[in-house]
């Protein structure tokens, strides 16, 4: 398995010993480079996701989607971005200017923040704290703040209403999300993202196989809660077009709105990426315990595994989104508090029992 930390260490020593830079400069340069890489990756994924969403949605609705701009519509996203960039940005009268401008950045910051936690390859985790899982949930909740501030600062009653709905929904579902993550932590015994992935290498060691029944349940709950967390259908009542026009970002134009749009799509990817990391083994390849097959699989780079698995989950979430009708706000809260939340607590207990008695397939 290719280890990306070789490159990272080589680059680090290049700066430190070959160029003789001090701690400050080395870290600064590395931070800037990594930051750039993350933002570029973010943008590229956004383009892919938006295109994918449009095509997948079209196919589910028995249409063919964009085909005009570029071959098979591939340049459509660029045209859309260009359109959005040249739109005028204006502020609503009597809006709270500071908060109004701050909100999109909070949302995008939360999104990029959680994005940076994803393990792209062996040794290519950008943020890898020993409390990684906790930090992911903590950073992702900045997004709730952004959404709420956006609605509040817009000087628009509908936006406030929608922001409250969005906040209620996101805060509620974050609970089940967190509990599912904790059940994975119980299984692997670490909160570090790299540690969690590391423990999933080897034959049949993905958590979903390791933890069997509780892990599969946790995975399902995670997908549902994640979908709600990303504010996507069937949980997209924050932007119920028919009742609230566009919800908390009604008053945003141009790139202000673009940021929300971007964050929404990338949150979809972040959720899929996290589901991949926690339950489907991150960059870990499929190993089934047969020598030849395993070495062959190990030759495929980790990033391919990671992206492949993440996009499978993305497709799964899109399938769900374009199938189910939107829920009412009371139904959303009922689903969370009456079904998902108790279920995730049961999963937690079940997982603990399984781990305590050694009823798992951990190697």
């Amino acid at each position, binding site marked *: 398995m290719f280890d990306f930390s070789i490159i990272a260490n080589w680059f680090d020593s290049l700066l430190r010993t070959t160029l003789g830079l001090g701690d400050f400069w080395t870290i600064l340069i590395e931070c800037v480079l990594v930051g750039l890489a993350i933002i570029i990756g973010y943008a590229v994924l956004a383009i892919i996701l938006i295109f994918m969403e449009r095509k997948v949605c079209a*196919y589910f609705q*028995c*249409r063919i989607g964009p085909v005009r701009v570029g071959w098979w519509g591939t340049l459509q996203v660029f045209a859309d971005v260009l359109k959005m960039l040249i739109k005028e940005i204006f502020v609503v009268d009597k809006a709270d200017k500071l908060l109004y401008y701050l909100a999109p950045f909070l949302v995008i910051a939360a999104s990029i923040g959680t994005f940076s936690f994803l393990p792209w390859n062996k040794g290519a985790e950008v943020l890898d704290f020993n409390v990684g899982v906790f930090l992911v949930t903590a950073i992702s909740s900045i997004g709730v703040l952004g959404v709420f501030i956006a609605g509040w600062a817009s000087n628009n009653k509908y936006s406030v209403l929608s922001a409250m709905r969005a906040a209620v929904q996101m805060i509620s579902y974050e609970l089940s999300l967190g509990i599912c993550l904790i059940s994975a932590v119980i299984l692997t015994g670490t909160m570090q993202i790299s540690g969690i992935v590391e423990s999933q290498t080897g034959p049949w060691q993905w958590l979903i196989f390791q933890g069997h029944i509780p892990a599969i349940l946790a995975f399902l709950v995670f997908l549902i809660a994640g979908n709600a967390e990303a504010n996507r259908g069937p949980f997209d009542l924050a932007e119920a077009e028919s009742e609230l026009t566009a919800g908390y970002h009604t008053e945003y134009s141009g790139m202000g709105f673009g940021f929300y749009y971007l964050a929404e799509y990338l949150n979809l990817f972040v959720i899929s990426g996290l589901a991949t990391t926690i339950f489907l083994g991150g960059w870990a390849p499929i190993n089934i315990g047969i020598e030849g097959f395993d070495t062959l699989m190990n030759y495929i780079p980790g990033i391919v595994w990671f992206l492949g698995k993440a996009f499978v989950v993305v497709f799964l979430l899109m399938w769900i989104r374009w*199938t189910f009708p939107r829920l009412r706000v009371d139904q959303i809260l009922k689903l969370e508090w009456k079904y998902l939340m108790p279920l995730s607590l049961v999963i937690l207990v079940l997982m603990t029992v399984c781990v305590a008695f050694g009823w798992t397939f951990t190697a």
Partner: protein
Amino acid sequence: MENKQSYFGEIGAAFKTLTTGLKTTMKEYFTPKSTEQYPENRKTTLHIAKRHRGRLVFKRDESENYKCVACLMCEKACPNGTIRISSEMQTDPETGRKKRQLLDYQYDLGDCMFCNLCVNACNFDAIEFTNDFENAVFDRSQLVIHLNEEVYKGGSLPNVIDGGAEWQVGTFNTKTK
């Protein structure tokens, strides 16, 4: 509809309906799409159902006579005043009987909502809808059509009144001419 079910019964029912939904959409995902690539295909593979209501026309016989007798039934039936008929009483020189004669049958395509009530109201089978749908013009006033003055012989596209090309599924109908 109030269906009282137990806690777990509800979960079971939910799972059942949700998987049905997922199955349906997955099937839809793989069915061939029948999207038409208009306007590329407007002269080649364009299919437009015969019953599509594009605009109102007079039915004419071989010698291009219309059957309208200016009875005003369609004008009365029309909910939004799309049809305006003016007529006068004329005396037939041979029989000496008085008869209503159509002077002007004005149909404002811009007002019509294609409800077909006028066609249903007509007792003389004088009007019908054609599926010719390319009605866009740059000026509203051009949409006011005098049906008695025009002799409608199919629209801008070849054999569109007969439904155009065969309806094809899964080919995207992109063929241009």
